[in-house]
């Protein structure tokens, strides 16, 4: 097996969202990916989740397309039920031994019909459903599992344990059961390894005071998630376990197994606050009149748009938040739970609840030590994979990288970013070349349907109860059945799951369908998936149409099932009407210019530029300032003790020395024209203007500290910002203040109406700089006035250190902001008096301060607006760039070929910016590494017989894609046309039409509705 030839294989261990993302990116780069997964299906934790915060996107819905894509990608080989047992060799040439457990079912033969499951006599608690349901010994991991085949649980199978039964074998018509199956050991030669085996949920049995397992009505958050899930054991209808009734009052207890020194889990799990809020909101949507209460220490809503979600939970949904650690839970008659807790002011209180949900934390996998041993990687103090601050994706062993929560708690987008980032790190060990072909995947030849009578297949999705809970799906099926040209109608539980996609393919063949309509969710996320399914069935992908009966129907009309059903029927009928008029379309290949433009020469921009340059592509790095470095220039230390200035200098040096990178300083982008693969940008540097041709864009323009006017800032020199303070600390200047008493105020201009977002780094900065000051002046009194301490993740322990060192943290409310006044009203730079309400003392405290440090919000750049316009990409309400999808596409824009990273995307720490920068670069490489990609098929065309050459279209086209030819007839450049249809709508004689949105199709859709 082993050879020294350049290797393009890579092993990804663990097929959660991080593993899936890493595999997809690697495969797009041209690598041969082996994705191994212990369980029988890829997906990881996400399929267990009902919804995701802060958009309440259905978790499975957003994941399913990625799972399918992963399964379908020709560059990815899936190894379910497998684990990595050893690694030997060198980076670039590892030999990985993988043990693949016997499944006793031949995945090639199994059609997942489920008959075996019905016959199997052995019931086993289902670990996917968190033991809330029983499965059989032969089972499918979950309904939408990929691969879809069944497996036999050897530990419980009667035949395999006791030697008798084999009922499954008898019933299986596909002859897929193979009791002779054995565990296999596979040896793979790989250039690099990506570890993404995730976390285990904390087991709350250790917290005896909460009575988990003793009290039926105490459940973990993961169990509750399954209860909420439409595809879970309760079909989304949450009931009190002890009596089966709808709960009225539920309590969420935060930090179970997190921030817990006693249990040696003195880190924050980062995600529990948000998921508890999410669960409270979703539960409230499910159950009318539900009263959820969240018992918490700090609400850590530090991510993008999280605070708005938190605010909505409280104001709109009436979720009650109680700042308290619950002391104990007792069970009274009938299973009602009594929670004892002390309020902030120390007073004790008891309240009764129907259910208590323990927000359990994220823990390293149980087998981590053993696993680390066989891989020869080191773990940190908690047992997560050890990384260093500035190399957060590198394990202690060269060539082995880590992503996802395996190296510490992360939410979904952070996992996705770390996965893409890890891919960037892998590339140097893989021998990848620029790819010639548009698509590696082979599809069957397209069936010619031109001239055939439309034969429409209609598939109506239940989406669990997401649709079927509101819309009468059987009625819609009956309705669609009788419409003209409809040859087949069927309802599907989850249309996007692999088994249903297979069903669609089968039906296309069986009924010779030549148009397909799926009524389910939104085409914005799912159209590509279904289109690919059509391709796999030998149909042109444009013979597909969706009816959005979930996002724009069942979810929006939850209380009006009849009218929602009427609407759904109309939408389906409109889709069918359009489908009848669909025609096959072709996609034009687009050449990719293998150069990158990176906008912003801060740490994120430089990091992204280096990744791209190291992969062998030319980079143009544009910086508005006179020198590189951005905000990092003002950061002198980190909580963890690493030196950011050293990082900065090294990075700048490498950028400058890299021949593939051209740096433009004092530069301004004046114009960006073109599209993916073929951008043309005009840059002005001083008086010089240059034009850059490039294939992709990375936006890394950064952000800045807000120029606050609060708390006498700018009026008294003793009031400084956290950044200014950091500078003072690292120069001699701090001495001028003789700091004996220092006050820090957190959340200045953050988390308020105008900037309803958390600036994420300020709590850490306050802790960091407090500790630094304590180093210099051990006797100084430091008071941090905060709203919530958000030292999330592994930074939590420094918060503990700070408290241990006597730094005083006093909470304040937005309603009672601290009051700052000069001690001497006549001296503008006099010492300051800070008054604040101490909620623990329940009294006002007055602090004399030599120095007041303001943790001012991180503010989006005004220039973003201009750049967003040039790039035609959106900003969020706060002025930060808005990514394509907050969960699963955190560095992409909706517009192809443009990526975002660093503070331009939102506030974040140095290491987070670096990860995101690497992720953006890695996503960019998936494009740069191809010589051509395909354009959309939905572009405009001119019927020359109808054109009178008036030239309106020429004027209107924003892409200069139309010209009048010698005969004065309009002609469209298909490579330039973006398919907006402005010309189509403006052509008086109807000579231009937009493929995919033709006049005919719009006409038929309008006409289809009965009034």
């Amino acid at each position, binding site marked *: 097996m082993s050879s020294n030839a350049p290797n393009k294989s890579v092993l990804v261990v663990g097929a959660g969202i991080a593993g899936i993302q890493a595999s997809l990116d690697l495969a797009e780069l041209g690598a041969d990916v082996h994705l191994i997964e212990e369980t029988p299906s890829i997906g990881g934790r996400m399929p267990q989740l009902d919804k995701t915060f802060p958009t309440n996107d259905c978790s499975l819905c957003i994941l399913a397309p990625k799972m399918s894509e992963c399964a379908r990608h020709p560059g990815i080989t899936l190894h379910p039920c497998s684990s990595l047992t050893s690694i030997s060799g060198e980076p670039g040439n590892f030999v990985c031994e993988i043990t693949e457990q016997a499944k006793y079912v031949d995945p090639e033969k199994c059609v997942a019909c489920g008959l075996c499951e019905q016959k199997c006599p052995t019931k086993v608690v289902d670990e996917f459903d968190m033991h809330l349901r029983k499965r059989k010994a032969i089972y499918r991991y979950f309904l939408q599992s990929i691969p879809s085949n069944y497996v036999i649980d050897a530990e419980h199978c009667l035949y395999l344990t006791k030697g008798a039964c084999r009922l499954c074998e008898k019933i299986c018509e596909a002859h897929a059961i193979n009791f002779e199956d054995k565990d296999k050991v596979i040896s793979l030669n790989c250039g690099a390894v990506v570890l993404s085996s995730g976390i285990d949920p904390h087991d709350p049995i250790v917290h005896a005071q909460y009575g988990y397992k003793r009290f039926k009505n105490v459940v973990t958050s993961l169990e509750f998630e399954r209860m909420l899930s439409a595809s879970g054991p309760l079909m989304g209808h949450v009931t009190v376990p002890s009596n089966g009734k709808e709960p009225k009052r539920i309590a969420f207890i935060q930090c179970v197994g997190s921030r817990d020194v006693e249990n040696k889990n003195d880190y924050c799990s980062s995600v529990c606050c948000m998921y508890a809020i999410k669960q409270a909101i979703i539960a409230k949507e499910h159950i009318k009149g539900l009263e959820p209460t969240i018992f918490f220490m700090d609400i850590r809503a530090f991510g993008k748009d999280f605070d708005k979600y938190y605010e909505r939970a409280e104001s709109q949904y009436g979720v009650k938040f109680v700042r308290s650690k619950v002391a104990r839970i007792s069970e009274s008659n009938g299973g009602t739970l009594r929670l004892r807790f002390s309020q902030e002011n120390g007073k004790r209180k008891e309240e009764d609840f129907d259910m208590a949900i323990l927000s359990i934390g994220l823990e390293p996998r149980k087998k981590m030590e053993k696993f680390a041993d066989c891989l020869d990687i080191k773990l940190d103090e908690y047992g997560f994979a050890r990384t260093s601050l500035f190399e957060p994706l590198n394990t202690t062993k060269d060539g082995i990288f880590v992503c996802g929560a395996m190296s510490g708690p992360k939410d979904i987008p952070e996992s996705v970013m770390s996965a893409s980032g890890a891919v960037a790190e892998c590339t140097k060990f893989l021998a990848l070349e620029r790819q010639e072909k548009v698509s590696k995947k082979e599809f069957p030849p397209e069936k010619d349907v031109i001239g055939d009578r439309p034969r429409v297949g209609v598939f109506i999705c239940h989406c669990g109860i997401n649709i079927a809970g509101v819309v009468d799906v059987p009625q819609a099926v009956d309705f669609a059945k009788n419409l003209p040209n409809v040859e087949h109608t069927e309802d599907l539980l989850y249309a996007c799951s692999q088994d249903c996609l297979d069903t669609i393919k089968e039906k296309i063949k069986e009924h010779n369908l030549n148009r397909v309509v799926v009524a389910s969710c939104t085409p914005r996320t799912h159209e590509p998936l279904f289109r690919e399914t059509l391709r796999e069935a030998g149909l042109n992908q444009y013979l597909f149409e969706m009816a959005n009966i979930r996002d724009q129907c069942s979810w929006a009309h939850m209380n009006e099932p009849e009218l929602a059903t009427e609407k759904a029927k109309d939408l389906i009928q409109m889709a069918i009407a359009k489908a009848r008029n669909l025609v096959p379309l072709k996609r034009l290949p687009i050449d990719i210019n293998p150069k990158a433009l990176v906008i912003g020469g801060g740490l994120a921009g430089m990091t992204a530029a280096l990744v791209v340059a190291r992969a062998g592509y030319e980079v143009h790095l544009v910086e508005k300032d006179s020198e590189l470095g951005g905000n990092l220039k003002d950061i002198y230390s980190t909580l963890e003790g690493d030196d950011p200035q050293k990082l900065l200098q090294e990075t700048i040096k490498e950028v400058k020395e890299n021949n593939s990178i051209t740096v433009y300083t004092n530069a301004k982008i004046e114009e960006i024209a073109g599209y993916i693969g073929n951008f043309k940008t005009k840059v002005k540097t001083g008086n010089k203007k240059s034009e850059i041709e490039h294939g992709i864009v990375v936006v890394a323009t950064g952000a800045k500290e807000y120029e606050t006017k609060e708390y006498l800032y700018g009026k008294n020199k003793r009031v400084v910002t956290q950044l200014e303070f950091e500078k003072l600390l690292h120069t001699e200047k701090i001495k001028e203040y003789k700091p004996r008493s220092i006050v820090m105020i957190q959340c200045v201009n953050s988390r308020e109406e105008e900037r309803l977002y958390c600036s994420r780094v300020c709590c850490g900065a306050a802790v960091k700089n407090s500790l630094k000051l304590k180093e210099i002046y051990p006797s100084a009194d430091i008071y941090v006035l905060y709203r919530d301490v958000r030292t999330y993740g592994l930074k939590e322990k420094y918060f503990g250190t700070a408290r241990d060192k006597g730094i005083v943290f006093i909470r304040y409310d937005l309603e009672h902001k601290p009051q700052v006044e000069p001690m001497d009203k006549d001296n503008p730079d006099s010492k300051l008096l800070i008054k604040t309400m101490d909620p623990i003392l329940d009294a006002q405290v007055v602090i004399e301060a030599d120095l007041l440090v303001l943790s001012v919000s991180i503010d989006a750049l005004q220039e973003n607006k201009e750049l967003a316009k040039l790039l035609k990409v959106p900003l969020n309400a706060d002025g930060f760039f808005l990514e394509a999808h907050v969960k699963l596409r955190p560095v992409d824009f909706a517009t192809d070929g443009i990526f975002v990273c660093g503070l331009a995307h939102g506030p974040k720490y140095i290491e987070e910016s670096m990860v995101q920068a690497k992720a953006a670069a890695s996503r960019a490489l998936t494009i740069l590494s191809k010589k051509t990609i395909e354009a959309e098929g939905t572009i405009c065309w001119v019927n020359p017989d109808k054109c009178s050459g008036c030239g309106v279209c020429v004027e209107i086209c924003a892409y200069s894609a139309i010209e009048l030819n010698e005969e004065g007839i309009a002609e469209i450049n298909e490579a330039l046309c973006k398919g907006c249809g*402005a010309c189509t709508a403006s052509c008086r004689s109807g000579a231009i039409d937009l493929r995919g949105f033709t006049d005919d199709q719009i006409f038929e859709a309008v006409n289809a509705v009965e009034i």
Partner: protein
Amino acid sequence: MKEWQPKILAFLCNWCSYAGADLAGVSRIQYPPNIRVIRVPCSGRINPISIMKCLQNGFDGVLVSGCHPGDCHYITGNYYARRKFAVLKTLLEFIGIEPGRVQFSWVSAGEGEKFAEVIKKVTEDVKKLGPAKKLVKI
């Protein structure tokens, strides 16, 4: 007797208003179930002819919603749309069509709430006007 439910056709641009409508759904913001949506790439794709067709087919109202000025995914599509709609609206009102029948809005991908508000408003307006008669082909 059941309350009369108008039917309103909504042309939504893919990048902003359609996404805004999705967001309203994802956020479970409730709004009247009276709209029937046609997704188009851009508000600039909407030919006034299609709006007239809706009115002729008997839709009680028509809404066209696109990206906010400056936000157009296709740079200027909504600016051309705005001119078209201004002229169309003036003409329809000149002819005597009730102003509430044909409406236009800008809703961004992030404005789920606004989308719901727009739909509520349009539905209320149309309900006040009653079933469409003028221009409806019997």
